Protein backbone atom coordinates (compact mmCIF):
# COMPACT_ATOMS: atom_id res chain seq x y z
CA UNK A 1 0.00 0.00 0.00
CA UNK A 2 2.90 2.32 0.85
CA UNK A 3 4.12 1.85 -2.72
CA UNK A 4 0.87 3.29 -4.05
CA UNK A 5 1.07 6.39 -1.84
CA UNK A 6 4.71 7.00 -2.71
CA UNK A 7 3.94 6.66 -6.41
CA UNK A 8 0.87 8.92 -6.21
CA UNK A 9 2.91 11.57 -4.43
CA UNK A 10 5.69 11.24 -7.03
CA UNK A 11 3.28 11.70 -9.93
CA UNK A 12 1.51 14.69 -8.33
CA UNK A 13 4.81 16.30 -7.40
CA UNK A 14 6.16 15.91 -10.93
CA UNK A 15 3.05 17.50 -12.44
CA UNK A 16 3.18 20.37 -9.98
CA UNK A 17 6.84 20.96 -10.60
CA UNK A 18 6.42 20.94 -14.34
CA UNK A 19 3.56 23.39 -14.01
CA UNK A 20 5.57 25.79 -11.87
CA UNK A 21 8.52 25.56 -14.26
CA UNK A 22 6.34 26.26 -17.28
CA UNK A 23 5.48 29.85 -16.44
CA UNK A 24 3.81 30.50 -19.79
CA UNK A 25 1.40 27.68 -19.12
CA UNK A 26 0.48 29.15 -15.74
CA UNK A 27 0.04 32.62 -17.19
CA UNK A 28 -2.04 31.54 -20.16
CA UNK A 29 -4.20 29.40 -17.89
CA UNK A 30 -4.92 32.54 -15.92
CA UNK A 31 -5.09 35.13 -18.67
CA UNK A 32 -7.68 33.20 -20.70
CA UNK A 33 -10.52 33.34 -18.14
CA UNK A 34 -9.52 36.83 -17.01
CA UNK A 35 -9.87 38.18 -20.55
CA UNK A 36 -13.32 36.64 -20.71
CA UNK A 37 -14.18 38.17 -17.37
CA UNK A 38 -12.78 41.64 -17.92
CA UNK A 39 -13.53 42.08 -21.61
CA UNK A 40 -16.23 39.72 -22.80
CA UNK A 41 -18.41 39.92 -19.70
CA UNK A 42 -18.05 43.69 -19.49
CA UNK A 43 -19.06 44.02 -23.13
CA UNK A 44 -22.07 41.76 -22.80
CA UNK A 45 -23.22 43.08 -19.45
CA UNK A 46 -25.86 45.28 -21.06
CA UNK A 47 -26.87 42.85 -23.77
CA UNK A 48 -27.67 39.91 -21.53
CA UNK A 49 -30.07 40.38 -18.68
CA UNK A 50 -30.07 37.60 -16.13
CA UNK A 51 -33.26 36.84 -14.27
CA UNK A 52 -33.20 35.62 -10.70
CA UNK A 53 -32.36 31.92 -10.95
CA UNK A 54 -31.03 29.53 -8.32
CA UNK A 55 -28.56 29.56 -6.66
CA UNK A 56 -28.71 33.37 -6.86
CA UNK A 57 -31.32 35.10 -4.70
CA UNK A 58 -31.06 38.49 -6.31
CA UNK A 59 -30.34 40.12 -9.65
CA UNK A 60 -26.72 39.60 -10.54
CA UNK A 61 -24.24 41.09 -12.92
CA UNK A 62 -23.25 39.10 -15.98
CA UNK A 63 -19.70 38.85 -14.60
CA UNK A 64 -21.03 37.05 -11.57
CA UNK A 65 -23.03 34.69 -13.77
CA UNK A 66 -20.14 33.61 -15.97
CA UNK A 67 -17.59 33.15 -13.16
CA UNK A 68 -18.47 29.46 -12.54
CA UNK A 69 -18.41 28.93 -16.31
CA UNK A 70 -14.92 30.38 -16.44
CA UNK A 71 -13.86 28.15 -13.56
CA UNK A 72 -15.15 25.24 -15.63
CA UNK A 73 -13.21 26.63 -18.58
CA UNK A 74 -9.98 26.58 -16.57
CA UNK A 75 -10.58 22.95 -15.70
CA UNK A 76 -11.65 22.02 -19.22
CA UNK A 77 -8.48 23.52 -20.68
CA UNK A 78 -6.38 21.98 -17.96
CA UNK A 79 -7.93 18.55 -18.54
CA UNK A 80 -7.24 18.82 -22.26
CA UNK A 81 -3.78 20.23 -21.70
CA UNK A 82 -2.73 17.42 -19.41
CA UNK A 83 -3.97 14.95 -21.99
CA UNK A 84 -2.04 16.92 -24.59
CA UNK A 85 1.00 16.42 -22.41
CA UNK A 86 0.20 12.71 -22.37
CA UNK A 87 0.12 12.50 -26.13
CA UNK A 88 3.40 14.42 -26.09
CA UNK A 89 4.77 12.14 -23.37
CA UNK A 90 3.82 9.12 -25.39
CA UNK A 91 5.49 10.45 -28.49
CA UNK A 92 8.55 11.50 -26.53
CA UNK A 93 8.61 8.31 -24.51
CA UNK A 94 8.22 9.49 -20.92
CA UNK A 95 4.78 7.91 -20.79
CA UNK A 96 6.60 4.61 -21.29
CA UNK A 97 8.49 5.08 -18.05
CA UNK A 98 5.17 5.50 -16.29
CA UNK A 99 3.59 2.50 -17.97
CA UNK A 100 6.47 0.08 -17.31
CA UNK A 101 6.51 0.79 -13.58
CA UNK A 102 5.25 -2.11 -11.48
CA UNK A 103 1.82 -0.67 -10.71
CA UNK A 104 -1.57 -1.35 -12.26
CA UNK A 105 -2.40 0.83 -15.21
CA UNK A 106 -5.70 2.02 -13.74
CA UNK A 107 -3.78 3.33 -10.74
CA UNK A 108 -1.12 5.06 -12.83
CA UNK A 109 -3.70 6.75 -15.01
CA UNK A 110 -5.89 7.79 -12.09
CA UNK A 111 -2.84 9.22 -10.33
CA UNK A 112 -1.93 11.18 -13.42
CA UNK A 113 -5.50 12.42 -13.50
CA UNK A 114 -5.43 13.48 -9.84
CA UNK A 115 -2.16 15.31 -10.41
CA UNK A 116 -3.78 17.31 -13.21
CA UNK A 117 -6.82 18.08 -11.05
CA UNK A 118 -4.58 19.33 -8.26
CA UNK A 119 -2.92 21.77 -10.66
CA UNK A 120 -6.29 22.96 -11.99
CA UNK A 121 -7.55 23.64 -8.46
CA UNK A 122 -4.56 25.87 -7.81
CA UNK A 123 -5.34 27.79 -11.00
CA UNK A 124 -8.97 28.21 -10.00
CA UNK A 125 -8.14 29.63 -6.58
CA UNK A 126 -5.73 32.17 -8.07
CA UNK A 127 -8.46 33.14 -10.55
CA UNK A 128 -11.04 33.46 -7.75
CA UNK A 129 -8.64 35.60 -5.73
CA UNK A 130 -8.24 38.04 -8.66
CA UNK A 131 -11.99 37.98 -9.32
CA UNK A 132 -12.61 38.92 -5.69
CA UNK A 133 -10.90 42.24 -6.29
CA UNK A 134 -13.20 42.67 -9.29
CA UNK A 135 -16.15 42.53 -6.91
CA UNK A 136 -17.05 38.94 -7.58
CA UNK A 137 -17.43 37.98 -3.97
CA UNK A 138 -19.33 34.80 -3.26
CA UNK A 139 -19.93 33.90 0.41
CA UNK A 140 -16.76 32.90 2.25
CA UNK A 141 -17.99 29.34 2.84
CA UNK A 142 -18.41 29.06 -0.94
CA UNK A 143 -14.63 29.02 -1.28
CA UNK A 144 -14.59 25.96 0.91
CA UNK A 145 -17.58 24.16 -0.64
CA UNK A 146 -16.23 24.58 -4.09
CA UNK A 147 -13.14 22.50 -3.26
CA UNK A 148 -14.82 19.05 -3.34
CA UNK A 149 -16.88 20.20 -6.33
CA UNK A 150 -13.72 21.24 -8.15
CA UNK A 151 -12.17 17.87 -7.41
CA UNK A 152 -15.11 16.05 -8.95
CA UNK A 153 -15.50 18.29 -11.99
CA UNK A 154 -11.73 18.31 -12.51
CA UNK A 155 -11.70 14.52 -12.42
CA UNK A 156 -14.54 14.33 -14.91
CA UNK A 157 -12.96 16.75 -17.39
CA UNK A 158 -9.51 15.22 -16.85
CA UNK A 159 -10.94 11.75 -17.52
CA UNK A 160 -12.39 13.09 -20.75
CA UNK A 161 -8.94 14.34 -21.73
CA UNK A 162 -7.42 11.01 -20.74
CA UNK A 163 -9.95 9.19 -22.87
CA UNK A 164 -9.09 11.36 -25.85
CA UNK A 165 -5.36 10.90 -25.31
CA UNK A 166 -5.79 7.12 -25.31
CA UNK A 167 -7.26 7.19 -28.77
CA UNK A 168 -5.20 9.92 -30.39
CA UNK A 169 -2.04 8.60 -31.93
CA UNK A 170 -0.27 11.80 -32.81
CA UNK A 171 -0.10 15.37 -31.68
CA UNK A 172 -1.34 16.70 -35.02
CA UNK A 173 -4.70 15.04 -34.50
CA UNK A 174 -5.01 16.67 -31.14
CA UNK A 175 -5.41 20.21 -32.46
CA UNK A 176 -8.50 19.08 -34.34
CA UNK A 177 -9.95 17.45 -31.28
CA UNK A 178 -9.39 20.64 -29.29
CA UNK A 179 -11.58 22.45 -31.79
CA UNK A 180 -14.15 19.70 -31.90
CA UNK A 181 -14.26 19.15 -28.14
CA UNK A 182 -13.36 22.26 -26.18
CA UNK A 183 -15.27 24.89 -28.14
CA UNK A 184 -18.51 22.94 -28.69
CA UNK A 185 -18.51 21.83 -25.07
CA UNK A 186 -17.96 25.34 -23.80
CA UNK A 187 -20.35 27.19 -26.07
CA UNK A 188 -23.12 24.62 -25.87
CA UNK A 189 -23.31 24.84 -22.12
CA UNK A 190 -24.56 27.09 -19.36
CA UNK A 191 -21.13 28.66 -18.95
CA UNK A 192 -22.10 31.83 -20.81
CA UNK A 193 -25.90 31.82 -20.77
CA UNK A 194 -28.58 30.07 -18.69
CA UNK A 195 -30.54 27.16 -20.14
CA UNK A 196 -33.83 29.06 -20.38
CA UNK A 197 -32.14 31.67 -22.56
CA UNK A 198 -30.93 28.94 -24.90
CA UNK A 199 -34.40 27.39 -24.98
CA UNK A 200 -35.85 30.68 -26.15
CA UNK A 201 -33.71 30.62 -29.26
CA UNK A 202 -33.30 26.93 -30.07
CA UNK A 203 -34.88 23.81 -28.65
CA UNK A 204 -32.15 21.59 -30.11
CA UNK A 205 -29.36 23.66 -28.61
CA UNK A 206 -31.18 23.61 -25.32
CA UNK A 207 -31.37 19.81 -25.32
CA UNK A 208 -27.72 19.41 -26.27
CA UNK A 209 -26.66 21.91 -23.62
CA UNK A 210 -28.80 20.23 -20.98
CA UNK A 211 -27.10 16.86 -21.46
CA UNK A 212 -23.65 18.28 -22.05
CA UNK A 213 -21.50 17.03 -19.14
CA UNK A 214 -19.77 20.40 -19.08
CA UNK A 215 -23.11 22.11 -18.34
CA UNK A 216 -23.63 19.79 -15.39
CA UNK A 217 -20.11 20.44 -14.15
CA UNK A 218 -20.60 24.21 -14.39
CA UNK A 219 -23.93 24.04 -12.57
CA UNK A 220 -22.42 21.86 -9.86
CA UNK A 221 -19.67 24.45 -9.39
CA UNK A 222 -22.12 27.36 -9.52
CA UNK A 223 -24.21 25.96 -6.68
CA UNK A 224 -21.17 24.92 -4.64
CA UNK A 225 -19.72 28.42 -4.90
CA UNK A 226 -22.89 29.66 -3.19
CA UNK A 227 -22.82 26.97 -0.51
CA UNK A 228 -25.52 24.84 -2.14
CA UNK A 229 -25.54 21.27 -3.36
CA UNK A 230 -26.96 20.55 -6.79
CA UNK A 231 -27.70 16.86 -6.53
CA UNK A 232 -28.71 16.28 -10.13
CA UNK A 233 -25.59 17.97 -11.52
CA UNK A 234 -23.40 16.15 -8.99
CA UNK A 235 -24.75 12.72 -9.91
CA UNK A 236 -24.51 13.44 -13.61
CA UNK A 237 -20.87 14.52 -13.18
CA UNK A 238 -20.01 11.38 -11.19
CA UNK A 239 -21.64 9.25 -13.86
CA UNK A 240 -19.79 10.99 -16.68
CA UNK A 241 -16.50 10.71 -14.78
CA UNK A 242 -16.94 6.97 -14.22
CA UNK A 243 -17.84 6.36 -17.83
CA UNK A 244 -14.94 8.43 -19.23
CA UNK A 245 -12.43 6.85 -16.87
CA UNK A 246 -13.48 3.28 -17.67
CA UNK A 247 -13.20 3.90 -21.40
CA UNK A 248 -9.80 5.59 -20.92
CA UNK A 249 -8.46 2.68 -18.87
CA UNK A 250 -9.66 0.24 -21.50
CA UNK A 251 -7.93 2.43 -24.09
CA UNK A 252 -4.63 2.18 -22.24
CA UNK A 253 -4.93 -1.53 -21.44
CA UNK A 254 -2.19 -3.46 -23.24
CA UNK A 255 -4.50 -6.26 -24.27
CA UNK A 256 -7.36 -3.98 -25.31
CA UNK A 257 -7.93 -0.58 -26.86
CA UNK A 258 -5.11 1.47 -28.31
CA UNK A 259 -2.36 -0.95 -27.35
CA UNK A 260 -4.17 -3.87 -28.91
CA UNK A 261 -4.70 -2.06 -32.18
CA UNK A 262 -0.95 -1.71 -32.49
CA UNK A 263 -0.49 -5.41 -32.79
CA UNK A 264 -1.01 -8.89 -31.50
Amino acid at each position, binding site marked *: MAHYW*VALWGIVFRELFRFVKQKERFLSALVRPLVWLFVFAAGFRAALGIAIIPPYDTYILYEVYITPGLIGMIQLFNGMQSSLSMVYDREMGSMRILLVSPLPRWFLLTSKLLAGVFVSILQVYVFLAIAWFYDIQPPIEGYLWILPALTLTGLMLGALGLLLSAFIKQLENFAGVMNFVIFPMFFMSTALYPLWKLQESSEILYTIAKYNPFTQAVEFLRFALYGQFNQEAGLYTILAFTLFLIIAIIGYN*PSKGMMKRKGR
Partner: protein
Amino acid sequence: MSELALDIKQLNFSYGKKQVLHNLSFHVEAGQCAFLLGPNGAGKSTLFSLITRLYDQEKECIKLAGVDIKVEPLKALAQLGVVFQQTTLDLDLSVRQNLLYHAALQGLSRKSARIAVQKQLEQLSMYERQNELVRQLNGGHRRRVEIARALMHQPKLLLLDEPTVGLDIASRESIITHVHKLSDETGLAVLWATHLMDEVLEQDKVIVIHQGKVQAEGAIKELTEITQRDSLSEAFFTLTQKQEA
Protein backbone atom coordinates in the same frame (compact mmCIF):
# COMPACT_ATOMS: atom_id res chain seq x y z
CA MET B 1 23.33 -22.95 -15.42
CA SER B 2 22.86 -19.87 -13.27
CA GLU B 3 19.50 -18.27 -12.71
CA LEU B 4 17.72 -17.01 -15.83
CA ALA B 5 17.03 -13.30 -15.73
CA LEU B 6 15.14 -13.44 -19.00
CA ASP B 7 13.61 -16.52 -20.50
CA ILE B 8 11.71 -16.27 -23.78
CA LYS B 9 10.07 -19.36 -25.20
CA GLN B 10 8.32 -19.66 -28.55
CA LEU B 11 7.21 -16.08 -28.74
CA ASN B 12 5.03 -15.13 -31.67
CA PHE B 13 3.66 -11.70 -32.45
CA SER B 14 1.75 -10.14 -35.33
CA TYR B 15 0.70 -6.67 -36.38
CA GLY B 16 -2.65 -7.54 -37.86
CA LYS B 17 -1.92 -10.22 -40.43
CA LYS B 18 1.78 -9.51 -40.61
CA GLN B 19 3.70 -11.79 -38.30
CA VAL B 20 6.84 -10.05 -37.03
CA LEU B 21 8.12 -12.55 -34.44
CA HIS B 22 8.26 -16.27 -35.24
CA ASN B 23 8.74 -18.79 -32.44
CA LEU B 24 11.41 -16.64 -30.87
CA SER B 25 13.28 -18.36 -28.03
CA PHE B 26 16.40 -17.36 -26.12
CA HIS B 27 17.49 -16.60 -22.58
CA VAL B 28 19.84 -14.34 -20.66
CA GLU B 29 21.49 -15.58 -17.49
CA ALA B 30 22.19 -13.55 -14.37
CA GLY B 31 25.50 -11.71 -14.77
CA GLN B 32 25.42 -12.11 -18.53
CA CYS B 33 25.65 -9.31 -21.05
CA ALA B 34 23.64 -10.28 -24.12
CA PHE B 35 23.60 -8.28 -27.33
CA LEU B 36 20.66 -8.36 -29.64
CA LEU B 37 21.84 -7.76 -33.18
CA GLY B 38 19.53 -7.41 -36.09
CA PRO B 39 18.95 -5.20 -39.11
CA ASN B 40 16.20 -2.58 -39.08
CA GLY B 41 12.79 -4.19 -39.00
CA ALA B 42 14.15 -7.43 -37.51
CA GLY B 43 11.68 -7.19 -34.63
CA LYS B 44 13.94 -5.79 -31.90
CA SER B 45 11.68 -2.90 -30.92
CA THR B 46 8.62 -5.13 -30.92
CA LEU B 47 10.45 -7.58 -28.70
CA PHE B 48 11.35 -4.79 -26.27
CA SER B 49 7.75 -3.59 -26.19
CA LEU B 50 6.65 -7.11 -25.32
CA ILE B 51 9.26 -7.55 -22.57
CA THR B 52 8.25 -4.20 -21.06
CA ARG B 53 4.56 -5.11 -21.45
CA LEU B 54 3.77 -2.08 -23.55
CA TYR B 55 2.28 -4.67 -25.88
CA ASP B 56 0.44 -7.69 -24.65
CA GLN B 57 0.91 -11.28 -25.78
CA GLU B 58 -1.64 -14.04 -25.88
CA LYS B 59 0.43 -16.84 -24.40
CA GLU B 60 2.82 -17.15 -21.49
CA CYS B 61 6.16 -16.81 -23.26
CA ILE B 62 8.27 -14.32 -21.33
CA LYS B 63 9.68 -14.82 -17.86
CA LEU B 64 11.63 -12.16 -15.97
CA ALA B 65 13.71 -13.66 -13.13
CA GLY B 66 11.38 -16.65 -13.12
CA VAL B 67 8.18 -14.57 -13.08
CA ASP B 68 5.87 -14.78 -16.07
CA ILE B 69 4.97 -11.32 -17.35
CA LYS B 70 1.53 -12.46 -18.47
CA VAL B 71 0.66 -14.12 -15.15
CA GLU B 72 2.20 -11.67 -12.66
CA PRO B 73 2.94 -8.51 -14.66
CA LEU B 74 3.65 -6.21 -11.72
CA LYS B 75 6.01 -8.62 -10.00
CA ALA B 76 7.77 -9.21 -13.29
CA LEU B 77 8.10 -5.51 -14.14
CA ALA B 78 9.68 -4.85 -10.73
CA GLN B 79 12.67 -6.95 -11.90
CA LEU B 80 13.22 -4.76 -14.92
CA GLY B 81 15.23 -1.60 -15.62
CA VAL B 82 14.84 0.00 -19.03
CA VAL B 83 16.63 2.57 -21.14
CA PHE B 84 14.55 3.28 -24.21
CA GLN B 85 15.97 4.34 -27.53
CA GLN B 86 14.39 7.79 -27.31
CA THR B 87 15.22 9.80 -24.26
CA THR B 88 12.50 9.54 -21.65
CA LEU B 89 13.80 12.13 -19.20
CA ASP B 90 11.81 15.18 -18.25
CA LEU B 91 13.87 18.03 -19.66
CA ASP B 92 12.38 20.67 -17.37
CA LEU B 93 13.25 18.79 -14.20
CA SER B 94 16.67 18.40 -12.62
CA VAL B 95 18.64 15.16 -12.74
CA ARG B 96 17.77 14.52 -9.12
CA GLN B 97 14.05 15.20 -9.61
CA ASN B 98 13.95 12.82 -12.54
CA LEU B 99 15.51 10.07 -10.47
CA LEU B 100 13.27 10.72 -7.47
CA TYR B 101 10.21 10.55 -9.71
CA HIS B 102 11.30 7.15 -10.94
CA ALA B 103 12.08 6.03 -7.37
CA ALA B 104 8.53 7.00 -6.38
CA LEU B 105 7.08 4.95 -9.24
CA GLN B 106 9.13 2.00 -8.04
CA GLY B 107 7.88 2.50 -4.48
CA LEU B 108 11.23 3.36 -2.90
CA SER B 109 11.01 5.17 0.44
CA ARG B 110 12.47 8.68 0.63
CA LYS B 111 15.52 7.44 2.45
CA SER B 112 16.17 4.54 0.07
CA ALA B 113 15.58 6.86 -2.87
CA ARG B 114 18.14 9.39 -1.60
CA ILE B 115 20.71 6.64 -1.06
CA ALA B 116 20.01 5.15 -4.50
CA VAL B 117 20.30 8.55 -6.22
CA GLN B 118 23.69 9.16 -4.65
CA LYS B 119 24.98 5.65 -5.33
CA GLN B 120 23.93 5.47 -8.95
CA LEU B 121 25.00 8.99 -9.85
CA GLU B 122 28.37 8.60 -8.15
CA GLN B 123 29.03 5.42 -10.10
CA LEU B 124 28.49 7.33 -13.31
CA SER B 125 30.37 10.45 -12.14
CA MET B 126 27.20 12.52 -12.31
CA TYR B 127 26.55 13.20 -8.63
CA GLU B 128 27.93 16.76 -8.75
CA ARG B 129 25.48 17.55 -11.51
CA GLN B 130 22.39 16.26 -9.75
CA ASN B 131 20.80 19.70 -9.46
CA GLU B 132 21.26 20.67 -13.09
CA LEU B 133 18.29 20.67 -15.41
CA VAL B 134 18.37 17.75 -17.83
CA ARG B 135 17.92 20.25 -20.66
CA GLN B 136 21.41 21.59 -19.90
CA LEU B 137 23.10 18.19 -20.23
CA ASN B 138 24.65 16.83 -23.40
CA GLY B 139 23.49 13.58 -25.00
CA GLY B 140 26.11 11.42 -23.28
CA HIS B 141 25.29 12.73 -19.84
CA ARG B 142 21.56 12.32 -20.42
CA ARG B 143 22.18 8.69 -21.28
CA ARG B 144 24.18 8.22 -18.10
CA VAL B 145 21.29 9.67 -16.11
CA GLU B 146 18.91 7.26 -17.82
CA ILE B 147 21.12 4.31 -16.95
CA ALA B 148 21.37 5.53 -13.34
CA ARG B 149 17.60 5.81 -13.27
CA ALA B 150 17.06 2.32 -14.67
CA LEU B 151 19.22 0.88 -11.89
CA MET B 152 17.70 2.77 -8.95
CA HIS B 153 15.47 -0.10 -7.86
CA GLN B 154 18.17 -2.77 -8.33
CA PRO B 155 16.55 -4.69 -11.16
CA LYS B 156 17.74 -8.14 -12.18
CA LEU B 157 17.55 -7.36 -15.88
CA LEU B 158 18.59 -4.18 -17.64
CA LEU B 159 17.17 -3.56 -21.11
CA LEU B 160 19.09 -1.14 -23.29
CA ASP B 161 17.62 -0.16 -26.62
CA GLU B 162 20.44 1.30 -28.72
CA PRO B 163 21.64 3.49 -25.86
CA THR B 164 24.77 4.76 -27.57
CA VAL B 165 23.26 6.01 -30.82
CA GLY B 166 24.43 9.54 -31.56
CA LEU B 167 27.02 9.64 -28.78
CA ASP B 168 30.69 10.52 -29.16
CA ILE B 169 33.37 7.86 -28.75
CA ALA B 170 34.25 8.78 -25.16
CA SER B 171 30.62 8.67 -24.01
CA ARG B 172 30.10 5.34 -25.75
CA GLU B 173 33.22 3.86 -24.18
CA SER B 174 32.19 5.01 -20.74
CA ILE B 175 28.70 3.45 -21.06
CA ILE B 176 30.05 0.17 -22.46
CA THR B 177 32.62 -0.12 -19.67
CA HIS B 178 30.16 0.78 -16.94
CA VAL B 179 27.50 -1.69 -18.03
CA HIS B 180 30.00 -4.55 -18.39
CA LYS B 181 31.45 -3.76 -14.98
CA LEU B 182 27.98 -3.81 -13.42
CA SER B 183 27.18 -7.10 -15.03
CA ASP B 184 30.46 -8.65 -13.79
CA GLU B 185 30.33 -7.27 -10.28
CA THR B 186 26.65 -7.35 -9.36
CA GLY B 187 25.26 -10.21 -11.39
CA LEU B 188 23.00 -7.87 -13.35
CA ALA B 189 21.78 -9.40 -16.60
CA VAL B 190 21.78 -7.09 -19.60
CA LEU B 191 19.94 -7.29 -22.89
CA TRP B 192 21.40 -4.66 -25.20
CA ALA B 193 20.01 -3.97 -28.66
CA THR B 194 22.52 -2.39 -31.02
CA HIS B 195 23.80 -2.03 -34.57
CA LEU B 196 27.35 -1.30 -33.43
CA MET B 197 29.35 -4.52 -33.35
CA ASP B 198 32.34 -3.01 -31.56
CA GLU B 199 30.24 -2.72 -28.40
CA VAL B 200 30.29 -6.50 -28.01
CA LEU B 201 33.13 -8.00 -25.94
CA GLU B 202 34.59 -11.52 -26.28
CA GLN B 203 32.75 -12.91 -23.27
CA ASP B 204 29.34 -11.49 -24.23
CA LYS B 205 26.47 -13.44 -25.66
CA VAL B 206 25.25 -12.42 -29.09
CA ILE B 207 21.75 -13.11 -30.36
CA VAL B 208 21.27 -12.42 -34.04
CA ILE B 209 17.68 -11.93 -35.08
CA HIS B 210 16.45 -11.42 -38.57
CA GLN B 211 12.90 -11.31 -39.92
CA GLY B 212 11.58 -12.10 -36.46
CA LYS B 213 13.61 -15.29 -36.01
CA VAL B 214 16.72 -16.09 -33.99
CA GLN B 215 19.35 -16.89 -36.62
CA ALA B 216 22.14 -17.79 -34.22
CA GLU B 217 23.29 -17.21 -30.67
CA GLY B 218 26.51 -17.60 -28.73
CA ALA B 219 29.79 -15.84 -28.06
CA ILE B 220 31.57 -14.01 -30.88
CA LYS B 221 33.90 -16.98 -31.32
CA GLU B 222 31.03 -19.43 -31.75
CA LEU B 223 29.31 -17.24 -34.33
CA THR B 224 32.45 -16.79 -36.37
CA GLU B 225 33.02 -20.55 -36.28
CA ILE B 226 29.47 -21.36 -37.38
CA THR B 227 29.67 -18.94 -40.27
CA GLN B 228 33.36 -19.52 -40.96
CA ARG B 229 34.06 -15.81 -40.97
CA ASP B 230 36.80 -13.75 -39.37
CA SER B 231 34.81 -11.15 -37.49
CA LEU B 232 31.45 -10.59 -35.87
CA SER B 233 30.46 -8.08 -38.55
CA GLU B 234 31.10 -10.60 -41.31
CA ALA B 235 29.30 -13.32 -39.37
CA PHE B 236 26.36 -10.99 -38.89
CA PHE B 237 26.15 -10.19 -42.60
CA THR B 238 26.31 -13.86 -43.47
CA LEU B 239 23.56 -14.72 -41.04
CA THR B 240 21.25 -11.92 -42.10
CA GLN B 241 21.83 -12.20 -45.84
CA LYS B 242 21.40 -15.93 -45.92
CA GLN B 243 17.65 -15.51 -45.50
CA GLU B 244 17.32 -12.81 -48.09
CA ALA B 245 19.19 -14.75 -50.79
